[in-house]
């Protein structure tokens, strides 16, 4: 049999590499800006498009889907070709994948600052972009499986299983969490409501971490670390166990994001149990990576690439130890909603995803340009300033998290809250926030130095766009061969591998999601809870547009410290008309679930115009544009109709007269404000937002009053 000659496509790898670096710098710069906004609200630059609530999602989307996303495709396109000894299936599909993905990112950069958002964390993009993501993801899948089918290596290395699991699980997650009913070109309502929506979102959110930030990176670790250290992975058997156990367990862990909420108790417990079990496969993977370097630790001293890998793996170990700890209810009670979580995710993002990406870039760019790295010194500088950046980021955030978490729970000996004003706890941690932005700045500086270093490297070499390679074609399988074990058979059957991975992730998905989505007794209804009035509904959409839920939760947990501070704890039945749910995941400001009736309309008006008028020292940005912009009431009918389709009991034909009710309520609020010497036209956006804020949590209060 003659060996076949073919070429690896390095150009597509290079393109994804460039995109990784550019979007990395952009995403991290936006991150730095939002970090500074948290102690200096003026950094929102006085306009709505760069305000925290709108660009914090831009930061998360840019670093997750643009920086990490492009890095995944860079690593997959490089390693897949070589592990399969084949060029990518189709150059055209590679191009469509590349440019399609960049277009999706650009559309995110445009729509998120405009306030076009679903409010689902890490899934904020509106429905047309969701469709585009689906199509491009399918293109990626076809290109990957096409390459697998024309491979010249019979068995699929463990890295490729991780890529297959990533592909199939992200597809499932994205589709299930994108069931939206379009209202207009860039506005939709989630099909699920309240607690069901929360469960779907955090099943998605947690597994986006698992299958976008973890499994593809583990696959890349299993390919690139042996290459970098020039020795095989420590234990191949451990990698098999790692793979199956990790994808099985991860999918169950989502509910640990919803502890002490109105999610059914058994679902919370299930999430906790599996989160703790997750420690085993996670550490199995980390240990497998670190032990690959056994006997090569002397190399780590000289080779900056391996240094990045070691710190990256260590960060992975720390983050995956911390995750199970944070999912213990008692720890979660303090850590949840605080900066502790921010520290936790950034140890993973900056350490694990960031450092692995940098290591791969430093390793790969000189190779595809057939040259050496321009400056080892600069790479070494990057390593140290990056590590320092992570420390300066994480330590102050842990400190801030503990401080605020404990302060909020503290009672005086007389039994009253020691710090009843939420703002007091915020002001205490501002110095830590300043330090955190210094850490983030150091880390970003390192990335900029890397970008320069890689540019100079590329300039001094020449891209081998098509790298020649040679391999024997796959011979036909002999039918009389020796007996094989199942797993060995599975390793050469990509489709069966994908189906097996799909089944494994569906077990947890079904057991966990189905009862809450289908059994109505899991969500006890409350007679007093009524649909939102048209004005409140419009106000709620403004709340979503401005991204208020990035800083304010809407769920009171059943702790005395919370019921004393906010009011009665939340019930599942309160959220049955909430498409989407707006519980939030972070309390940079206080919870708003019981905000209705707490202050007068005038307070809200002044507070939204300039929060510091009512709460001196507040870090909330001014929302003065709400005072001047007119509410778009042309959408009311479509919104009411869509809500009715989703099961909200608006009477038939109500959409035709909804704007009359809306005007009436606008006038009431404007008249009320006039009594407090505030002149505002009825049709301004602020009136609608005040209507919504004054409604929050009042259904329960009303039912109490009626009962008396």
């Amino acid at each position, binding site marked *: 049999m003659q060996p076949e000659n073919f070429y*690896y496509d390095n150009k597509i790898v290079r393109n994804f590499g460039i995109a990784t670096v550019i979007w990395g710098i952009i995403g991290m710069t936006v991150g730095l800006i939002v970090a500074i906004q948290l102690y200096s609200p003026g950094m929102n630059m006085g306009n709505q498009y760069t305000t925290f609530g709108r660009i914090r999602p831009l930061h998360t989307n840019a670093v997750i889907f643009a920086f990490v996303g492009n890095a995944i495709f860079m690593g997959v396109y490089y*390693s897949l070709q*070589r*592990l399969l*000894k084949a060029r990518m299936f189709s150059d055209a599909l590679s191009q469509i994948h590349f440019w399609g993905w960049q277009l999706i990112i650009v559309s995110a950069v445009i729509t998120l600052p405009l306030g076009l958002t679903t409010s689902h964390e890490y899934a904020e993009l509106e429905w047309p972009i969701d469709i585009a993501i689906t199509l491009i993801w399918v293109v990626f899948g076809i290109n990957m499986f096409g390459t697998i089918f024309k491979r010249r*290596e019979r*068995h699929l*290395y*463990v*890295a490729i299983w991780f890529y297959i699991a990533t592909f199939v699980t992200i597809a499932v997650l994205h589709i299930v969490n994108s069931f939206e009913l379009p209202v207009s070109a860039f506005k939709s309502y989630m099909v699920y409501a309240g607690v069901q929506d929360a469960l779907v979102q955090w099943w998605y959110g947690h597994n986006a971490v698992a299958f976008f930030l973890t499994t593809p990176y583990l696959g890349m670790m299993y*390919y690139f670390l*042996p*290459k970098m250290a020039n*020795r*095989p*992975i420590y234990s*191949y*058997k451990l990698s*098999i*166990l790692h793979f*199956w*156990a990790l994808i*099985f367990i991860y999918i*169950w862990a989502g509910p640990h994001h919803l502890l002490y909420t109105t999610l*059914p*108790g*058994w*679902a*919370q*417990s*299930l999430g*906790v*149990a599996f989160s703790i*079990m997750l420690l085993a496969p996670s550490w199995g993977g980390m240990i497998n990576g670190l032990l690959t370097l056994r006997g090569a630790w002397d190399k780590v001293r000289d*080779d*900056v690439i391996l240094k990045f890998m070691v710190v990256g793996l260590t960060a992975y170990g720390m983050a995956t130890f911390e995750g199970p700890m944070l999912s*213990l*209810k*008692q720890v979660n009670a303090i850590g949840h909603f605080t900066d502790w979580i921010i520290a936790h995710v950034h140890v993973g993002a900056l350490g694990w995803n960031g450092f692995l990406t940098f290591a791969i870039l430093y*390793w790969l760019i*000189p*190779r595809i340009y*057939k*040259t*050496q*790295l321009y400056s*080892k010194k600069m790479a070494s500088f990057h390593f140290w300033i990056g590590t320092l950046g992570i420390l300066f980021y994480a330590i102050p955030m842990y400190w801030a998290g503990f401080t605020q978490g404990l302060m909020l729970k503290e009672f005086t000996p007389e039994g009253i809250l020691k710090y009843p004003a939420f703002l007091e706890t915020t002001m205490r941690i501002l110095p830590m926030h300043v330090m955190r932005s210094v850490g983030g700045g150091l880390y970003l500086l390192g990335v900029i130095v890397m970008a320069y270093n890689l540019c100079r490297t590329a300039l001094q070499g020449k891209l081998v766009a098509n790298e*020649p*390679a*040679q*391999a024997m074609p796959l011979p036909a399988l002999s039918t009389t061969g020796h007996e094989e*074990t*199942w*797993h*060995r058979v599975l*390793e050469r059957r990509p489709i069966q591998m994908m189906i097996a991975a799909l089944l*494994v992730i569906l*077990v*947890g998905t079904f*057991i966990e999601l189905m009862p809450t989505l289908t059994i109505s007794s899991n969500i006890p209804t409350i007679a007093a809870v009524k649909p939102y009035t048209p004005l409140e509904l419009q106000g709620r959409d403004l709340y979503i547009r401005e991204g208020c839920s990035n800083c304010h939760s809407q769920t009171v947990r059943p702790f005395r410290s919370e019921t004393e501070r906010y009011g009665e704890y939340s019930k599942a039945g309160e959220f049955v008309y909430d498409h989407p749910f707006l519980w939030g995941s972070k309390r940079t400001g206080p919870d708003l679930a019981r905000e209705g009736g707490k202050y007068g309309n005038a307070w809200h008006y002044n507070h939204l115009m300039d929060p510091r008028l009512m709460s001196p020292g507040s870090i909330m940005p001014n929302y003065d544009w709400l005072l001047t912009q007119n509410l778009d009431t042309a959408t009311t009918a479509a919104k009411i109709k869509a809500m009715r389709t989703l099961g909200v009991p608006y009477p038939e034909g109500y959409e035709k007269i909804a704007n009359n009710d809306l005007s009436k309520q606008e006038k009431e609020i404007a008249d009320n404000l006039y009594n407090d010497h505030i002149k505002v036209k009825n049709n301004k956006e602020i009136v609608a937002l005040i209507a919504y804020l004054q409604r929050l949590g009042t259904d329960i209060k009303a039912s109490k009053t009626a009962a008396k």
Partner: protein
Amino acid sequence: MFKQFTEHISGAQGYLLFSLGIFLVFFIVVAILLFRLRKQHVDHMRNLPLKDSHGESLNSYNL
């Protein structure tokens, strides 16, 4: 200290045990598969990344 955690696990115990049971069965199946793998195959698989047909001369490009 662990007592307080186990006591706080409320709701359908059966659900929990059933799920853990599924995982245990799954884990044992994978473990059996692992024990049955041949050493020769394992060695072949773990060396795959190091056996790129071409371009390995690039390995000398040490940073």
